[in-house]
């Protein structure tokens, strides 16, 4: 157990980390929104992140001081149907039907996800600022006009 001078710093950074992962996956999804493949079954599928809260330490040690925050439990592929587009001239189009299989990425969903993630990130930063102020106050306890 390390000394945590800034209350909840570890917890906050776990939250920032998780939100960052989400942002990263959103941009990967957007970047691959039009990635096609000769083999339609290998077409890019949207990546989704799942969060889980970390409370293991609390239950094991019976100590509520060390909340673990949050972690990315898994990154999986969205199994919803892929988009089909009729474009016979496309190099990856199906020679028989002329259909191109496109990833199941919806830019709108990704944008909303990115906004939620960045709001989450910002709230983490704001929390860290408050924690830091508290630590400063604790350190200067009793000195002058603290």
């Amino acid at each position, binding site marked *: 157990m390390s000394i945590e001078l800034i*209350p*909840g710093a570890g*917890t*906050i950074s*776990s*939250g920032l980390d*998780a*939100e960052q992962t*989400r942002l990263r996956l959103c941009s990967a999804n957007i970047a691959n929104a039009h990635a096609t493949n000769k083999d339609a079954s290998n077409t890019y599928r949207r990546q989704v992140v*799942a*969060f*889980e*809260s970390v409370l293991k330490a609390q239950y094991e040690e019976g100590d*509520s*001081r060390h*909340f673990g*925050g*949050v972690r990315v439990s898994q990154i999986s592929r969205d199994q919803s149907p892929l988009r089909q587009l009729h474009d016979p001239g496309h190099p990856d189009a199906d020679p028989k039907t002329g259909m191109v299989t496109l990833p199941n990425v919806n830019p709108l969903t990704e944008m909303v996800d990115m906004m*939620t*993630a960045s*709001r*989450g990130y910002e*709230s*983490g930063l*704001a*929390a860290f600022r*408050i*924690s830091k*102020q*508290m630590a400063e*106050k*604790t350190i*200067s*306890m*009793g*000195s*002058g*006009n*603290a």
Partner: protein
Amino acid sequence: MIGTDYTSELISKMMHLSVRRQELLANNLANLNTPGYTRRDLNFAGALGDAVRKDDLNALRQLNPEVTMDKSGSVRLDGNNVNAASEMNEMTQNGTLHALLAKAYSTRQRILKSAIR
């Protein structure tokens, strides 16, 4: 222990509790997007009031309020009931309380020092 000032102890205990509450609020914010998460809080006002009424330093020192699961507030579709705005509000107020306590501690120390002088 000789020379232990009850008021200083009380203030530092309250500061400790507000730091613990800050940790919990930070944990709630970290889990803002965790499906099925229920927000946690530390309600130390009641227990602290009891300890103060008893006027017992040991009861105050041993005070260890339990973390409660707060099921109030609207639960989102993903089963999470953390609201960033109310969490930030609680956190800001808690931070202000902590700053106030630090100030009170300094004032108390000044009073004691001037009494000694």
